[in-house]
């Protein structure tokens, strides 16, 4: 197997005047060398703005400029180092607000020429990758009705997903032109689709294999290194090529999560009812749009948070800058919009003299209320007040919001309400195939990738429930292969359990029908008279009178050898019903399948002399419709909450003035470690989702969403100064305290 290595750009923004690969090609052991000239097409999940390797221009420090495949990793690296690139540096833009200005350098002068999904609206001639609008109600009137209005500016930087397994892919092309890709991916079918479109290969001739994946968090959705691995293999005559990111490449060269600078204006009547929201988001997608153009859109769609706001005006700008670009990340726009809204709500509570929890409860969204896009919340609307009550109790809310200890340490609490709907295409699908083994055990096959959430086990539980077969006899495939697994959109957006769960449910029910049809023949009765339970199929209420499933699931063989029926193959499909896009001018539409609501908060202890603090407790309660697996559900919450704490407290890319990434390693991009986690208090409520499997709805991302707001609110309360800019490192808090008059 050949090993691949990348040459990354040492420049932030530059023209490529020339590339000399001759020394690399001449190096013994080098099988293929690629530059941007080797592929004339662009990749891009929504906007076709990204060449697999920089072509004519590099747009961020760390962008891949060339790739080498060689007989061993060391030779590949050495080969890459021998490539001579003639760069002509260009002026760079590093801030999204600056990027919006007329005089800003253009990151994509050719924006007009890119293909683009029809719901993404770039503005050629600018750095605007997408502009999403919400225009609900009369803004002037809304603020006229407000007795109190708050205005804030908030920000958060670009950051990293920090999955423990860096991205990597293996590609191989056989003599017949069939392509095999193995990848640490959340989206094998998207990889296939992108490669088919961009490289002109029939999808049936591409097999993408997704084995166990060492964490994704959105960063492995879309297409990552697979295209490059394929191109290297193609240049090397189809020989297998393995291309794996070093951690530093995973952080700087592959995408991270989106950054934001935002202005918000929020008005409320004297009694606390919200009257109007105006917000302007300057999202920073870095050098390429990737998923981030849709993240910015999702933020607009969710901009109010789970609150009733009659008038909403939002402009969400997704702006290009010359930095590491952004992809999907847990929370997908909802975490960013939540931070902004939750800070504003806290300020508002202060101005109104209202308890922050009471203010939130007063405006908590309910069934029948509408979202920013005008969609009405239906039967599956979670019990937000109930969630808030549990979360508040978990935080010892009744102890009071702020206490000062004799030694000067300050304890404070804050809560936020959160919501999320999957930001998905209106035709998102899942599928399931159920087959049986000769002992009556079951194989469940879906397109869901195992990224560690335990979804496979939960899908097995659903099959077990419908078939009445013990879970130990249900074998759920953990590896996806696009040629044989049922089609599935992507393992992301907290929709796998719900959608694949419904597909598994349908497949199991389909299997039951087939079992009955086969068994009806030897049992000599109408299938409608048969029941399946306890691993037997039998008429009426008489299990002894029936047959064991093992005698039926691969067809039934009579004692004389005649066989009838054939094997049972249960089929289930799901496709999102009734979803639409949103109107370009008003944002009106029905894009959200279902909303999962909840409340969460933290208790912090701050040392005001140094800005150093601890998060003592993190509590959260979310209404998930139905808890399929209590242990996994809890762990999605704790994992998400700690990720949210990292996001709020310390994570963020640091770029020099020249655009070089300073903290692109796990040594300096500090994820929370063992021993740092707070005490977790986690609860779930179950207001059933009528169209979910056994009433369940999505829950994987939600635990992160309200954390930045809650942490910022608690620390702002503790410090006595508004803290609106993440990450809230001790130094930032100390600086804010120093600046306090």
């Amino acid at each position, binding site marked *: 197997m050949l090993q691949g290595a990348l040459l990354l750009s040492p420049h932030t923004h530059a023209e490529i005047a020339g590339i000399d690969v001759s020394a690399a090609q001449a190096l013994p052991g080098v099988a293929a060398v690629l530059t941007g000239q080797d592929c004339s097409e662009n990749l891009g999940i929504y906007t076709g703005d990204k060449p697999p390797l920089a072509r004519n221009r590099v747009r961020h420090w760390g962008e891949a400029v060339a790739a080498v495949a060689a007989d061993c990793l*060391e030779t590949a690296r*050495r080969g890459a*180092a021998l490539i001579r690139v003639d760069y002509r540096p260009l002026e760079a833009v590093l801030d999204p607000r600056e990027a919006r200005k007329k005089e800003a350098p253009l990151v994509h002068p050719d924006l007009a020429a890119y293909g683009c999904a029809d719901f993404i609206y770039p503005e050629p001639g600018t750095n605007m990758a997408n502009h999403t609008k919400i225009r609900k109600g009369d803004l002037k009137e809304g603020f006229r009705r407000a007795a109190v209005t708050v205005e804030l500016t908030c920000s958060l930087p670009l950051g990293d997903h920090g999955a423990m397994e860096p991205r990597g892919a293996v590609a191989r092309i056989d003599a017949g032109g069939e392509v095999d890709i193995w990848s640490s991916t959340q989206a094998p079918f998207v990889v296939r689709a992108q490669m088919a479109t961009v490289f002109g290969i029939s999808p049936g001739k591409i097999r993408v294999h997704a084995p166990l994946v060492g964490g994704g968090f959105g960063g492995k959705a879309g297409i990552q290194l697979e295209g490059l691995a394929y191109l290297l293999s193609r240049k090397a005559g189809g020989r297998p090529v393995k291309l794996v990111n*070093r951690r*530093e490449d995973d952080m700087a060269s592959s995408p991270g999560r989106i950054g934001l600078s935002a202005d918000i204006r929020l008005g409320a009547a004297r009694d606390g009812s919200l009257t109007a929201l105006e917000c302007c988001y300057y999202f920073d997608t870095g050098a390429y749009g990737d998923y981030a153009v849709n993240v910015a859109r999702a933020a607009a769609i969710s901009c109010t948070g789970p609150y009733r706001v009659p008038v909403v005006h939002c402009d969400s700008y997704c702006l290009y800058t010359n930095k590491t670009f952004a992809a999907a990340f847990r929370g997908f726009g909802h975490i960013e919009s939540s931070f902004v809204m939750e800070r504003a709500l806290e300020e508002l509570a202060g101005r109104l003299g209202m308890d922050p929890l009471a203010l939130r409860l007063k405006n908590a969204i309910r069934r029948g209320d509408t979202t920013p896009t005008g969609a009405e919340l239906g039967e599956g609307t979670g019990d937000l007040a109930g969630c808030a009550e549990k979360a508040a109790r978990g935080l010892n809310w009744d102890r009071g919001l702020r206490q000062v200890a004799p030694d000067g340490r300050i304890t404070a609490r804050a809560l936020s309400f959160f919501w999320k709907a999957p930001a998905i295409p209106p035709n998102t699908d899942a599928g399931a195939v159920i087959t049986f083994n000769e002992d009556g055990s079951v194989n469940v096959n879906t397109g869901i990738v195992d990224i560690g959430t335990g979804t496979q086990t939960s899908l097995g539980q659903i099959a077990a429930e419908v078939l009445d077969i013990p879970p130990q006899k249900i074998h759920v495939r953990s590896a996806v292969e696009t040629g044989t697994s049922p089609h599935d959109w992507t393992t992301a957006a907290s929709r796998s359990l719900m959608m694949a769960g419904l597909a598994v449910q349908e497949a199991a029910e389909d299997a039951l029908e087939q079992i009955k049809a086969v068994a009806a023949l030897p049992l000599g009765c109408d299938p409608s008279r048969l029941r399946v339970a306890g691993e037997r199929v039998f008429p009426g209420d008489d299990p002894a009178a029936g047959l064991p499933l093992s005698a039926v699931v691969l067809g039934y063989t009579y004692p004389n050898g005649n066989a009838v029926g054939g094997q049972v193959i249960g089929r289930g499909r799901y496709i999102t019903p009734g979803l639409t896009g949103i109107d370009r001018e008003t944002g009106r539409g029905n894009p959200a399948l279902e909303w999962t609501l909840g409340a969460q908060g933290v208790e912090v202890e701050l040392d005001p*002399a*140094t800005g*150093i603090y601890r998060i003592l407790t993190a509590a959260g309660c979310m209404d998930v419709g139905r808890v399929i697996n209590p242990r996994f559900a809890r762990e999605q919450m704790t994992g998400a909450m700690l990720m949210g704490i990292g996001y709020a*407290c*310390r994570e963020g890319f*640091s770029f020099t003035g020249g655009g070089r990434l*300073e*903290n692109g390693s796990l*040594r*300096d991009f*500090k994820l*929370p*470690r063992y*021993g*740092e986690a707070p005490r977790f208090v986690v609860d779930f409520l179950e207001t059933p989702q009528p169209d979910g499997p056994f009433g369940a709805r999505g829950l994987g991302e939600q635990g992160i969403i309200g954390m930045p707001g809650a942490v910022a609110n608690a620390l702002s309360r503790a410090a006595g100064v508004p803290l609106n800019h993440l990450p809230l*490192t*001790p*130094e930032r808090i*100390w*600086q804010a305290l*120093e600046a306090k008059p």
Partner: protein
Amino acid sequence: MRSRDFIFVQPRSADEAAAVFQEETARGRSAAYWGGGTELLSLARTGKQTVQVGIDLKKIPELTAAELSGGVWRLGAGLSLTALQDRVDSPLWRDCLDDIADHTVRNRLTLGGNLCGRLPYREAALPLLLGDAAAVLHGPEGERRAPLRKLMEKGRLRLEPGEFLQGCEVTREAWEGRYIRRRFTGAGPVGYPLVHLVLTVKDGAWQMALGGVFPTPAWRNLAPPKADFPSWAEEIVSVGNEDIRGDFRGSREYRRALWLQALTAGGEALFKGGGR
């Protein structure tokens, strides 16, 4: 590191090590003395340092001994920090090493690596400077000793070409007395220090060793505080302000503020009979 050409040698004596270094250097190869290798491997992998010959010091008896004899601690530079913590029964020594890198890395990170490597923090130097340790060096000319305080006057350990640190010696007595230690990172328990302050008092004499604040470890004798701890600390902290390090992990102002805060609180605590 050019993996396929890389040479790794394991000399059995200090003289042999110094000789190999000379030979290889004379041949035009870049040679490096190898302790735990934790830093060298990281720098080599990211292309920040090229090493063609690694000279492993861990098979040399003088470098892997740690013992107390005649009231003097002899600390071999080839021992890992956790091994040195286990074998050296001094709370000050043990505490000061406890936050360097992380526990698993400390199982390999050697005293020599920490003191002589490229990373500027050299936190193992803090207790050694406080104890007025002697550094035992070995080079082409053989063994020599020098006070660590003198060798580290300008920050980095000043070695002659081809020299390596064989070990350090410090009297047990020098590590007696009471101390206060405060260490701050930008965030979290594992990380480079913004401030690592060690304050000691022994027989009325006050000393301070400081890591993280300046580009290299600093050591000073201090005038004892009286009652006004903030002023006492402010005066100490005002010396050398221009050199305080600032980077994305922590600004100059913040490091200074943490140092001042720790010094004030620590000074008061020690003065009033606290500390360890």
